[in-house]
C-alpha cells in the first residue's frame, strides 16, 4: 500500500505525504479560484477553454502556488534615519519540478495596519524593491552587493496592499543559484517605525507542467 501511495504522490508532484507543521492560512484568492473550478462540472469540456489555462491571470498554467516569504529583516549597524524598513524577501522555489515553466509571478505586500490610517501625514513613503543579483558577505553594507531596482512606488496609507508583477525574476529563480531573493525598502516617513510588525508578503506563482496538460480535443 505504501508503494502504491508513493506512486500516486509522485504523480501529484510530491516526494512524500506532506505533514504541514505550521500551515499558513489559505489566501482568499485561492479559495475563490478553487470554488470557481469546483462549480464547473467539467471545466475541460467548456467550449474554447483548455484545462491548462488560468483565466484569472490570462496565462497558461495548471499549478498555482502561494509561497510565504522566508526572508529576514536587515538590521544595519549604522541605522539610517530615513529608512524605516529594510527586509530581505526570499521565496523557496525548490518545490518546483524541473519540467515546470513559470508563466506568472505576483508579489503581494499587505500591511496589516489597524492603528494608523496614515503613516506620515503629508510625507509620502517610498517603497523600493530590488532584486539581489550577487550574494553579500557578512558585514557588507546593503549597497556593497549588486542589486537591480525593480519597482519604486510612493504611498501614504499604510493599510494599502501592493501587487507587483515579478514574472521575469521568478523565471530566473528556478535556477537555485540565481535565487538570491529581493530587498524591500520603505523610506521617508517619521512615523513609520514599527512598520515591520504588520508587514506580510507572499508570492503567487502560476506554472505549467506540460506533462499533465493534455489536449481535450477529440480525435477525428
Amino acid at each position, binding site marked *: 500500500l505504501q508503494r502504491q501511495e508513493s506512486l500516486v504522490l509522485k504523480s501529484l508532484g510530491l516526494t512524500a505525504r506532506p505533514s*504541514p507543521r*505550521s500551515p499558513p492560512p489559505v489566501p482568499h484568492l485561492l479559495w475563490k479560484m478553487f470554488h470557481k473550478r469546483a462549480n464547473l462540472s467539467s471545466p475541460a469540456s467548456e467550449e474554447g477553454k483548455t484545462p491548462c489555462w488560468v483565466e484569472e491571470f490570462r496565462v497558461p498554467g495548471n499549478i498555482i502556488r502561494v509561497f510565504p516569504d522566508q526572508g529576514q529583516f536587515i538590521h544595519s549597524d549604522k541605522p539610517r534615519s530615513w529608512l524605516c524598513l529594510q527586509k530581505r524577501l526570499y521565496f*523557496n522555489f525548490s518545490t518546483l519540478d524541473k519540467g515546470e515553466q513559470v508563466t506568472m509571478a505576483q508579489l503581494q505586500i499587505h500591511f496589516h495596519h489597524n492603528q494608523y490610517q496614515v503613516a506620515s501625514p503629508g510625507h509620502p513613503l517610498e517603497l523600493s524593491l530590488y532584486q539581489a543579483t550577487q550574494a553579500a558577505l557578512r558585514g557588507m553594507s546593503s549597497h556593497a552587493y549588486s542589486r537591480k531596482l525593480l519597482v519604486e512606488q510612493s504611498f501614504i496609507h499604510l493599510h494599502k496592499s501592493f501587487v507587483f508583477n515579478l514574472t521575469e525574476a521568478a523565471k530566473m529563480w528556478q535556477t537555485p543559484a540565481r535565487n538570491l531573493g529581493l530587498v524591500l525598502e520603505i523610506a521617508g516617513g517619521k512615523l513609520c517605525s514599527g512598520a515591520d510588525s504588520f508587514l506580510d508578503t507572499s508570492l503567487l506563482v502560476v506554472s505549467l507542467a506540460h506533462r499533465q496538460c493534455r489536449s481535450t480535443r477529440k480525435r477525428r
Partner: protein
Amino acid sequence: STYYVPTGASNICKPRRLYISFRDVGWEDWIIAPQGYLANYCLGECPFPLAEDLNSTNHAILQTVVHSLDPEGTPQPCCVPVRLSPISILYYDNDDNVVLRHYEDMVVDECGC
C-alpha cells in the same frame, strides 16, 4: 455456431458510483479541499455481440467474437474508463506552501470495452 446468453442491463459495462474520501485515504491533514470527490469506477460485462453504446474498440469487438467461439481460451474484453475528467485540489505541499493544482484523469465519466 455461437452460443448467446443475454446479459441483464445492470451487468453491462458502465460507470458505477464511488465517492473517495480523503479522510479514508489518510490525506485529510494536507488536502485542504475538497474533502473528497465522486471518482466512480467501471464495472460490468462486455458481452457478445457488443452494442455500439459500449464504446468498444475494434480489438474488443474481435475479442468478443473469438471469446464466443472459444470461451475457455480467450476471455471477454475488459470494462475500462474511456473518458475521464479532471478536478482541482487545494493542498499544502512538502514545504507548507498552499497549492491549487489541476489534475487530469481523476473522475470516470464513461466506460467502454
